[in-house]
């Protein structure tokens, strides 16, 4: 699971450097994000602009991250497109996650 970390105004921007977040990658993804949350990050933007496909395991991992960060933290998703957006809509998760076109937009809203 390739993740690229970046800090912006105390927000962790995590770029998913994989084309697919599926059952083969979801467990590692969940663990990697959990590690960062345990380390104290409670404001996280996931940059999914490079992701072309997510299955229900990947989606479940995202939900797990959201739960772990908890109601006092913040998890936003940036750059989801095409098949990824379609999955969010189908499962009504577009109403659960805070979705943004770009990382900048997500960071800006989280900072304000």
């Amino acid at each position, binding site marked *: 699971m390739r993740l690229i970390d970046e800090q912006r105004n105390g927000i962790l921007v995590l770029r998913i450097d994989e084309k697919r977040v*599926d059952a*083969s990658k979801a467990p590692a993804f969940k663990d990697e994000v959990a590690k960062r949350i345990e380390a104290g990050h409670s404001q996280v933007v996931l940059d999914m602009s490079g992701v072309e*496909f997510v*299955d*229900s*395991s990947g989606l479940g991992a995202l939900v797990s991250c959201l*739960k772990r960060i908890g109601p006092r933290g913040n998890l936003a998703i940036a750059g989801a497109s095409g098949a990824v957006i379609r999955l969010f809509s189908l499962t009504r998760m577009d109403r659960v996650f805070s979705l943004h076109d770009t990382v900048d937009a997500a960071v800006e809203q989280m900072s304000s």
Partner: protein
Amino acid sequence: MSVGIKLLIDSDLDKVALLARAVRALCSDVLDEDSSHAVEISLVEAINNVIKHGYEGKPGRNVGVVVSLRPDHVEIEVIDQAEPMEASLLSNASGDRFEFDITDLDALPEGGMGLALIQMNMDEVEYHAGQGENRLRMVKRHAQRTPSS
């Protein structure tokens, strides 16, 4: 005139993407983007289930997919030689799975979404178990021919 091809991987989650990419390329010749995604997500969920539940994560078993491009629909069959699943799990699955309370964080689903996604995305879904082989048959009709879909 039907045109069919069979694809085979062994029961390894790392190989599901290969199958998905190949089948997506076949479908995209006749289906639009949304329908191609509908087939891809259904196929991936079905194969993940075979590997994770049917074969209980054991490697070295076969997962087959037959793709037939027909004049007005695409037919996908997922074939395995695992213990069959309880057929009612599939027939009871539906989009109701996603009628959760979006304000109740703890109640959001982290799993149990695959069969529902299959039902929501495909126009026909049939499961046949027997003779040591299970077949999940899924049909996606071409969007332009089914204005109601």
